[in-house]
């Protein structure tokens, strides 16, 4: 098969270097609470096999020879699992080393720890322990090395997969927009739309497009959370202790490309290959479906080769059954379902689009739809389970109804007849969760934004099943959209704060620069770095810098104007640096206007200021005239118009003169 050419690819890589991979066992988030209370996230089952096994299987299939498994939480369980698996045997082509660091709280910590341990010798592949994929990594590694030859600073190749903008395989938090240089595959711009202020708008800096012959801007990419890293990645993490996540890293590198002397490249895997990382319930559901639909081939249940496990039988309608399954005569199993070995399904029960674990007891008249029931569960008669997750060894009492994103942690006993759409766990935990029965407590997520009374559960449900496959949930969808609009309204103010902070910073820098007689180039650098720190757009920078310069002199004294001239001559290089094109010029004039409105003392200086700026070729004639005509239209700028009038007249006369001269 064409997708597996690993042996050939291996030869083309040099013999002596070993392909190394770092598998981070933890996802450092509480997305899977309460499941992850006593189980590491990489050991959660996906289609009845734990995520880590899927990841390792893929790595060994794609030619990785040495893997470092980085554990931080529930280390013993991971170790125990590896010990009992085939990855422990000597003859396995993949040699697996376990690294333990219990203090790590983020990916950044893990990378710093790895750097300190010094185990990585060359380029390595960084994946999460929850990846499900069948992509061959060697061609990507080769491409990375090829790019490295031309670009010494290449730190990381980020692996993407094509998936349309509304593709169900894309988690909302992974909605990214990426601009890539077509020739060098260098990432120029990367924006996570969920994190940005206005998800409907994208601001791509002009210089990205202007400086290059061709730029690809992608809105249809799914971040696979796989990256090929150069050795320099680990020191970069160590040097920048504020890099916590992979997203921080990408953002940080792109912002400070020159300072860190590093760059990123993008690689898009073909439609024939699959890769995804299960880091949320949304992805859990999607990856499960993709696996059942066999996109992950050969990582499908009937091809898996796990020791001591019987293979699955693949039947029509994408139904997978493991031997021995007992289905009663009148039970119906249809459409994309998986049933693990040793499970029993009672009379008149229907199972649709669901995954049932091993040794589950499903009673009579049970209805299970779009749900995930893990190993050893007991579902008593006449229960209805829809769009829910039931953890290992749970018992769902007779007639209980679980719906809309209900999640039962391991060992929960859901009382008979209980109707639930929340997360339940079996122990009370540290906080006093509401008790609804013997070993069943409602989990309250300490999310900051779950302030609305039922926002929490809605969100889970949304995460699990925000899929247009389910047409019947129209009201649910409207809830989602209203939430979205709330979000955007809330997030406007922090942006304003950022610009304000930036303005204060610029004023401080300029003040200090003038007092200490610092070189203007250094000041520009300082302003630029604070610009990145507060994520301020270029136009705002133009506006704010001019404003800052103009508002520096102390207004109450008579010497305002003389101070202003002093400052202006001193800061002229800065102005020249920022005010380059007509857009920036109009920004500059806008600043002039705003200051003029606020500062009476400034008004008398306006004509001279305009004259100076005009003489210095900072402002062009057309822009000034345009600005002036706009000014006239507004009533509150009457004063400004009055003082600027002589200059404008002079300007017009000069123009006519020059015209007549040329005639």
């Amino acid at each position: 098969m064409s997708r597996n050419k690993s042996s050939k690819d291996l030869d083309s890589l040099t013999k002596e270097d070993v392909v190394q991979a770092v598998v981070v066992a933890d996802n450092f988030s509480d997305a899977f609470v309460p499941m992850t209370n006593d189980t590491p996230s990489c050991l959660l089952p996906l289609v009845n096999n734990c995520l880590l096994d899927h990841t390792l299987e893929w790595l060994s299939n794609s030619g990785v020879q040495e893997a470092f498994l980085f554990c931080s939480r529930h280390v013993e369980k991971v170790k125990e699992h590896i010990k009992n698996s085939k990855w422990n045997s000597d003859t396995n082509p993949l040699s697996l080393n376990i690294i333990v660091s219990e203090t790590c709280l983020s990916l950044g910590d893990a990378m710093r720890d790895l750097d300190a341990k010094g185990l990585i010798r060359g380029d390595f592949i960084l994946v999460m322990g929850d990846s499900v994929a069948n992509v061959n990594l060697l061609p990507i590694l080769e491409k990375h090395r090829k790019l490295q030859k031309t670009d010494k600073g290449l730190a990381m190749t980020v692996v993407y997969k094509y998936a349309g903008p509304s593709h169900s395989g894309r988690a909302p938090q992974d909605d990214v927009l990426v601009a890539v240089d077509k020739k060098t595959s260098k990432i120029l711009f990367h924006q996570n739309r969920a994190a940005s202020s206005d998800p409907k708008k994208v601001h791509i800096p002009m210089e990205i497009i202007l400086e290059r012959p061709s730029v690809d801007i992608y809105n249809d990419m799914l971040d696979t959370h796989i990256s090929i890293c150069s050795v320099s990645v680990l020191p970069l993490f160590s040097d920048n202790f504020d890099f916590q996540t992979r997203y921080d890293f990408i953002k940080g590198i792109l912002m400070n490309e020159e300072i860190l002397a590093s760059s990123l490249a993008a690689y898009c895997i073909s439609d024939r290959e699959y890769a995804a990382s299960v880091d949320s319930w949304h992805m859990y559901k999607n990856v499960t479906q993709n696996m059942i639909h066999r996109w992950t081939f050969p990582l499908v249940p009937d091809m898996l080769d796990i020791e001591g496990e019987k293979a699955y039988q693949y039947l029509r309608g994408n139904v997978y059954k493991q031997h021995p399954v007992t289905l009663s005569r009148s039970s119906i199993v249809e459409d994309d379902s998986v049933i693990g070995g040793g499970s029993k399904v009672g009379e008149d029960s229907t199972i649709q689009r669901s995954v049932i674990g091993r040794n589950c007891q499903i009673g009579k008249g049970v209805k299970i739809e779009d749900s995930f029931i893990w190993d050893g569960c007991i579902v008593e008669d006449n229960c209805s389970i829809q769009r829910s997750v039931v953890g290992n060894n749970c018992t769902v009492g007779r007639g209980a109804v679980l719906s809309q994103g209900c999640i039962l942690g391991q060992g929960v006993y859901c009382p008979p007849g209980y109707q639930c759409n929340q997360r339940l766990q079996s122990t009370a935990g540290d906080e006093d969760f509401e008790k609804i029965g013997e070993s069943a407590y409602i989990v309250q997520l300490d999310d900051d934004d779950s302030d609305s009374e039922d926002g929490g559960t809605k969100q889970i449900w949304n995460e699990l099943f925000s899929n247009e496959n389910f047409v019947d949930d129209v009201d649910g969808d409207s809830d989602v959209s209203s939430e979205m609009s709330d979000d955007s309204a809330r997030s406007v103010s922090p942006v304003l704060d950022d610009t304000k902070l930036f303005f204060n910073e610029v004023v401080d820098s300029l003040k200090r620069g003038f007092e200490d007689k610092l070189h203007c180039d250094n000041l520009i650098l300082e302003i630029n770095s604070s610009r990145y720190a507060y994520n301020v757009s270029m136009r705002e920078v133009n506006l704010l810098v001019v404003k800052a310069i103009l508002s520096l002199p102390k207004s109450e004294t008579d010497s305002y104007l003389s101070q202003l001239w002093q400052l202006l001559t001193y800061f002229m290089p800065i102005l020249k640096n920022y005010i380059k094109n007509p857009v920036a010029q109009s920004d500059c004039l806008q600043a002039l206007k705003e200051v003029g409105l606020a500062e009476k003392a400034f008004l008398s200086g306006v004509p001279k200021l305009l004259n100076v700026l005009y003489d210095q070729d900072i402002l062009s004639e057309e822009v000034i005239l345009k600005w002036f005509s706009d000014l006239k239209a507004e009533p509150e700028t009457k004063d400004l118009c009055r003082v600027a009038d002589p200059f404008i007249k002079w300007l017009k006369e000069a123009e006519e003169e020059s015209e007549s001269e040329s005639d």
Partner: protein
Amino acid sequence: MMKLENPKVQVQQSFLRFVSDVKQGKYHGSLEVTRKTVDLLKSLIVDGEFTNAQGMMSTIRTHGSFLHKSLPHYASVGNMARRVLKIVREEYAVGRKNKSEEMDPQESLHKIVTSVDSGEDYSSPLPDLKLSVLDHISEFEMELETSIDNIAQQAQEHIHSNELILTLGTSKVVESFLRKAAAHRKFDVIVVDCGPLGKGHELAVSLAKSKINTTVIGDNAIFGIMSRVNKVIIGTHTVMANGGLRALSSCHTVALAAKHCSVPVMVLAPLYKLTPQYLCSYDQDAFNSYVAPDGVLDFSDHSTLSQIKRYCPVFDYVPPELVTLFISNTGGHAPSYVYRLLSELYHPDDYEI
């Protein structure tokens, strides 16, 4: 040799490795897999300590059935285990006969008829067994190596000048068969592309390189072109016990179209592809394999994805009545003769492995 601690599955590591390699697609073509299987079984005999045929056979059977169960889609793997078992049986019988001849050279016809078949009991010790079995296996390996050539040798008998030959997908046997014929005759070839998996293009390119007039057509054009075709020559993945084929998908289409137009269908099948299995139902476990549907629909094509169920089967079953002739390394056979070949190749006791 390392053995697993679990006493139930005493399978050697090299076998486990082989299984995972095959699953990962590290071997190309069924001949390569077959050859490697024989190698592994041979190494079992070389490394093992056997006093009699029974021990040897049970070891081969355990490993053979392990391979067969782990690689259900590769029928030739199970076939090789059956074949090696048959070789052991034969050598044992020959060895016993030699011995008994020494003791009693004058065996009467009556004795032969009435004697209980000594082949049923393999427990008596036979010191030379290992050597003779290894010799026989080497012979068999030679046969495997030359099987494609032997088939290609017969090309001139089946392909005549100015004929239009239709074939599909890519197959090493078909390729060498056509090449051999092209050395002497001039004829045209049409290659059916066999989407989404089929690599008709690959075959067409390599045929064109040997100066054969080649045309590639899509699967939808099969029926249209069939009336002009003189012969259909295809390879197969497996030949079932009734003479049916398990072959690349769209073979059934080709065979049906050929039947409609009364075009002879010839199947090139080296003997190692003959398996004593039958197709009982289309839902039969491990008859077909389904791969990722990426060849049919793009993963990124979301709007259609959510509404459509996609299957991408690899194999087709072609019933025996649609096949005109099997060409094996020993000559041409009718589908109805396959059962006879099977009984020559394998011992009936080994059919269920």
